[in-house]
């Protein structure tokens, strides 16, 4: 056995394993160094200088950019370091618009937290602020350049992880800023609205565009029937905004909160996900049969759809024509509920609660407003729902349990796991496997462990009776880009490809509660898979209310009326 390599951090001996930098080793000593620009998922940037430590014999060094070495003696808490950290924060604060009480990020702001943590109580430097216009052009995100601290997190996220590069640094020195190309607004450039930039922004410089007031107005309008639909990923993350352990399942409290807030009915987007599975699986089987437009790409993720329209228009015929569950739900509610309640479509307000910022722009796509009435009127992120619950003063964790309204609140496990990367594929397999094998596999035999996993790109070969199906599950648009390039070059071939824009899937969406804890993603994933165990049914085709919908309305998957209400089309948006 080789000798253990160790170093010393503040008199604590710490084992060096395969950490990428000194910072990660120091974390193992249970010391959380302050940092703005370090994210384990992105490249090391070394801009914020807050993780400076003193290494004996080497002086002050940023721990994020130093390789751990055996025998290093590291001090993280010296008089000089304390002074420098305070100074850095003071300098950042001097060029930051500190509007904390009215800032959307207030309470979740990393700058606010670190300033408190480091004991910064006054700023010696005068504010040298030149106010820049707030960019509200995007339906999904707001940019407040006056609050930007130039840590570059959003830039690297957009460029490295998402392969988009809608924003970057421009100009130099004291004029440096993060901006879309040529100082344009976000809505004018390639942004796909995934919101991952906002997820990593430490301040209020980037955040999901709020629709809270519109929703309250609708609720307070006696002439409107206001219904909610909740996406799977919301139920395993909302609790974090109320000091609950990450991954805590709060479905029943959410339903309860929404009713108390004044929603007339509360539905589950997972119902529509069940419907999506049936339409998409049949579409897949049909394409396999005809040998047409294989691979089939999933289309539930609106950021991925925008990405494909923008960069890979030649693959648009390969995208499933299925609307996303959010839009299927909107369409079904507006048509069915209006008919059964004898209401006009415009008197029903559909509010969806999503982990996602791209869903906001998806709902505004003109094709989802038949007869100029939107199928989904407003989209709230998990963060916004938390704010509304807080605004009303509800004691969330203590709320009585409540259950969804029928019929659109009933779902199978297949519709719930949609929030995890690999979930859509697994749900489709639950349908396709029975179809191909021509037999029911029993209600307990439903898990496809082979498609689950932490890797952001996963390949699976599956033998079903006499057929072999090859699958790819990819999350993160940068990964999708690499995969598509391999498909184009003929290096790989798949039958079905699931793409989720956010690494890990919707549970890690841009509208989820803000966290710097890297373990949160995994906790949400596990909790969502576990949540299925409490449900009676797991295969979307077993959902009796979906079956009823087919019997009374759609007749069969892919029918003319199904196409009208549940399917859509795409258009190339390539520029240049």
């Amino acid at each position, binding site marked *: 056995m080789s000798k253990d390599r160790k170093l010393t951090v503040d008199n604590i001996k710490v084992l060096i394993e395969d950490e990428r930098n000194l910072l990660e080793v120091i974390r193992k000593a249970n010391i959380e160094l302050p940092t703005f620009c370090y994210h384990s998922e992105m490249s090391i940037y070394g801009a914020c200088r807050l993780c400076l430590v003193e290494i004996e014999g080497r002086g002050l060094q940023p721990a994020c950019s130093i390789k751990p070495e055996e025998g290093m003696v590291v001090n993280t808490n010296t008089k000089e370091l304390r002074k420098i950290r305070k100074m850095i924060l003071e300098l950042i604060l001097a060029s930051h618009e500190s509007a904390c009480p009215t800032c959307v990020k207030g309470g979740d702001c990393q700058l606010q937290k670190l300033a408190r943590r480091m004991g910064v109580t006054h700023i010696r430097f005068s504010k040298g602020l030149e106010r820049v216009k707030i960019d509200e052009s995007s339906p999904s995100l707001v940019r407040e350049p006056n609050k930007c601290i130039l840590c570059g997190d959003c830039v690297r996220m957009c*460029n490295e992880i998402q392969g*988009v*590069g*809608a*924003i*970057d*640094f*421009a*100009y*130099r020195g004291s004029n440096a800023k993060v*901006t*879309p*190309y*040529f100082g344009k607004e976000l809505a004018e*450039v*390639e942004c796909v609205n995934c919101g991952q930039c906002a997820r990593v922004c430490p301040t209020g410089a980037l955040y999901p565009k709020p629709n809270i007031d519109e929703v309250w107005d609708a609720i307070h309008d006696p002439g409107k029937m206001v219904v909610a639909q909740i996406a799977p990923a919301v139920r395993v993350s909302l609790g974090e905004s109320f000091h609950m352990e990450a991954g805590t399942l709060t479905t029943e409290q959410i339903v309860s909160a929404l009713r108390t807030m004044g929603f007339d009915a509360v539905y589950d987007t997972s119902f529509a996900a069940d419907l999506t599975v049936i339409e998409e699986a049949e579409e897949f089987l049909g394409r396999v049969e005809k040998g047409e437009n294989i691979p089939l790409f999933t289309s539930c993720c609106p950021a991925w759809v925008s990405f494909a329209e923008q960069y890979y228009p030649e693959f648009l015929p390969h995208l499933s024509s299925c609307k996303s569950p959010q839009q299927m739900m909107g369409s079904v509610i507006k048509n069915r509920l209006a008919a059964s309640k004898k209401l006009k479509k415009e008197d029903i307000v559909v509010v969806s609660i999503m982990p996602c910022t791209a869903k906001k722009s998806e709902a505004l796509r003109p094709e989802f407003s038949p007869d100029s009435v939107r199928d989904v009127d407003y989209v709230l992120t998990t963060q916004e729902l938390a704010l509304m619950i807080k605004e009303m003063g509800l004691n969330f964790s203590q709320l009585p349990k409540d259950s969804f309204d029928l019929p659109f609140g009933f779902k199978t496990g297949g519709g719930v796991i949609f929030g995890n990367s690999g979930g859509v594929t697994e749900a489709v397999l639950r349908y396709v496997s029975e179809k191909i094998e021509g037999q029911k596999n029993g209600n307990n035999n439903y898990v496809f462990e082979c498609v689950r996993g932490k890797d952001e790109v996963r390949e699976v070969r599956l033998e079903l009776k006499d057929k072999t199906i090859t699958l790819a599950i990819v999350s993160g648009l940068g990964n999708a880009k690499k995969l598509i390039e391999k498909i184009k070059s003929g290096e790989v071939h798949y039958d079905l490809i699931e793409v989720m824009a956010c690494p890990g899937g919707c549970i890690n969406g841009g509208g989820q509660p803000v966290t710097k804890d890297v373990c949160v993603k995994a906790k949400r994933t596990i909790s969502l898979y576990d949540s299925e165990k409490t449900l009676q049914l797991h295969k979307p085709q077993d959902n009796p209310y979906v079956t009823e919908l087919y019997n009374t309305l759609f007749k069969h998957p892919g029918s003319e009326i199904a196409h009208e209400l549940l399917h859509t089309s795409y258009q190339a948006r390539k*520029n*240049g």
Partner: protein
Amino acid sequence: MENTTYEKVNAILSENNYNPHGLIPILQAVQEEYRYLPENVMAYVASSLGIPASKVFGVASFYSHFTLQPKGKYIIKICDGTACHVKKSTEIINALEKHLGLTAGRRTTEDLLFTIETVACLGTCGLAPAIVINDEVHGLLTPEKAVELVKQIQAKEANSSGDKE
């Protein structure tokens, strides 16, 4: 239309083998061609190289060598280094600004004939105060002499544009 517009850019790109790492020499050549970096050309360069337009803009806006606004046919670099400054280069700047109707915020004339730039030192302190018009150095100037130089160019331009028409 597009093809003819970007023909020269295409030549530049292909000389550089469409290599994204050659972005700076590419932008230099583009600027040589257009005398500045037009927005649409930067977007075209970005999509041709397969890199985000924001990255191209980032590089173009970082270096003071690159200019994002059209510059005049004649670029007047007025030296404001130590030697020229004590020899009253400020008065030359003021005189030329007044003559051309320029201000601190507007450095190029509307007819796109002249751009005024101040530079730190031309290295010709023996000729202070000095200016450079395009590549020609003019030394030992007074405000009046400087304005006279510009007037001569204006007259020449007026004649040649008259000839064309």
